[in-house]
């Protein structure tokens, strides 16, 4: 071979090019194959003559070629980067990338030129990626299933805990009517507080599990009864948990409110519980509930260390607890559930926290009343 600049041996270049060449007539019958291709495929070049290109493909590739590639080539005149397996001499499948151009020069005899590139490593890499993707998907599916089981378990457990807790509460109630020593009353008060807290935790866990299991937060809206006694009840229950803390409460609810009173009570309970747990012990917790401008607003504020800025965006996520917070109590569901309750009422729950105080504000529109009568 002669490779000087003035003379390139194109015939030799065709034969030993670092890619396979196949020339066929317009119907795909092979008229010439280069040496590289014959070597790669493991069949002597003369054996290939007269075969159709699709004869080199296993049955799946043959179908794909005849139903997709051949019509495409005919219409478009070329295709590139098509991944095909070719049948090698020993029956092995040889992964290749194939380009083709149909030559239709004026007056000349039309022919098709294929170039073929080995793609075994690339194909192995792709298959590896696909396998890993399938594996990852299987793991995710298994984990989801497990998570669902766990949530079902939580739901059942929470539900079953309610009964013994109710028995304890009625037992306490009976005991409180007995003649007790000062110390006995104090212990009863503490036990009462613990039951309130446990009941609140169970309610939140059940709501969370129900939400995850597709039930969501369900509301029973009703404007016929006043909301204020429910809120008062929540405040007095939580006061039994923290008798030493001062809670400054004010109500200004002068119109009927179409809401789920139990849920709004739960929302306040979660917010107030947090305020009592996380707020500074020497500062009063402020609770304001008011209807104004067609809105119900419930504000719970406490003094103390502000919520760190990096914690703010995760505050309403389930199981979130501010890192390194000294009082790492609870499951971290309270704010999440409160937020869900707010949203179920078409309302919002917002937080503002600085050196002076941390304020949670629940706002919901009152026009739900019209919805109810409609």
């Amino acid at each position, binding site marked *: 071979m002669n490779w000087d600049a003035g003379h390139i041996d194109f015939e030799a270049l065709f034969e030993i090019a670092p890619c396979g060449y196949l020339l066929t007539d317009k119907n*795909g019958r092979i008229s010439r194959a280069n040496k590289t291709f014959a070597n790669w495929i493991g069949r002597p070049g003369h054996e290939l003559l007269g075969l159709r290109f699709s004869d080199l493909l296993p049955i799946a590739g*043959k*179908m794909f070629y*005849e*139903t997709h590639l*051949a*019509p495409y080539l005919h219409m*478009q005149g070329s295709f590139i980067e098509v991944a095909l397996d070719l049948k090698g001499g020993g029956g092995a499948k040889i992964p290749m990338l194939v380009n083709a151009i149909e030559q239709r020069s004026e007056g000349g005899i039309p022919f098709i030129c294929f170039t073929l590139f080995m793609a075994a490593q690339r194909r192995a890499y792709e298959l590896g990626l696909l396998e890993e993707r399938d594996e990852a998907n299987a793991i995710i599916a298994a984990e989801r299933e497990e998570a669902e089981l766990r949530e079902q378990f939580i739901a059942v457990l929470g539900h079953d805990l309610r009964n013994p807790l109710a028995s304890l509460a009625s037992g306490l109630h009976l005991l409180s009517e007995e003649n007790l020593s000062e110390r006995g009353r104090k212990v009863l008060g503490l036990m009462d507080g613990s039951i309130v807290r446990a009941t609140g935790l169970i309610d939140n866990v059940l709501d969370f599990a129900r939400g995850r299991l597709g039930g969501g937060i369900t509301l029973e809206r009703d404007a016929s009864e006043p909301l204020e006694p429910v809120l008062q009840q929540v405040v007095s229950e939580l006061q039994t948990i923290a008798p030493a803390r001062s809670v400054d409460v004010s109500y200004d609810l002068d119109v009927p409110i179409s809401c789920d009173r139990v849920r709004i009570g739960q929302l306040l309970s979660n917010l107030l519980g947090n305020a009592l747990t996380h707020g500074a012990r020497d500062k009063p917790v402020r609770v304001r509930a008011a209807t104004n401008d067609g809105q119900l607003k419930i504000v719970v504020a406490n003094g103390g260390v502000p919520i760190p800025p990096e914690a703010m965006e995760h505050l309403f996520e389930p199981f979130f607890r501010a890192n390194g917070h000294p009082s790492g109590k609870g499951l971290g569901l309270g704010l999440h559930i409160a937020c869900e309750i707010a949203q179920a009422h078409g309302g919002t729950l917002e937080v503002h926290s600085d050196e002076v105080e941390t304020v949670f504000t629940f706002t919901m529109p009152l026009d739900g009343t019209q919805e109810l009568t409609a």
Partner: protein
Amino acid sequence: MGNADRSELGDELTASVCRTDPQIAKHFARVTFLSDHRADLATAAARVLILQCRDDVIAPLSVGAYVHDAIQGSELVVLDATGHCPNLSAPEPTIAAIKAFL
């Protein structure tokens, strides 16, 4: 290159080739390789024209002959065409055969 005068068809075909989604290809393969409707042929109630390409790897001449035998009163036309899509590789004879039948 390409058939500039048939660009609309070409675009459609480009789209259909590019749409060779692995899931669709799998479904196509399952339907193509695993279904057998030979028994249904005898129940064909309409007038039937069978267009058979002379050189089709997927459906050789014997396939057209089989269908022709199985459907009574059917008409078989062997087109002087290559491949599985005579509407693309040999549109004129295909159209002529359909027109003659109709």
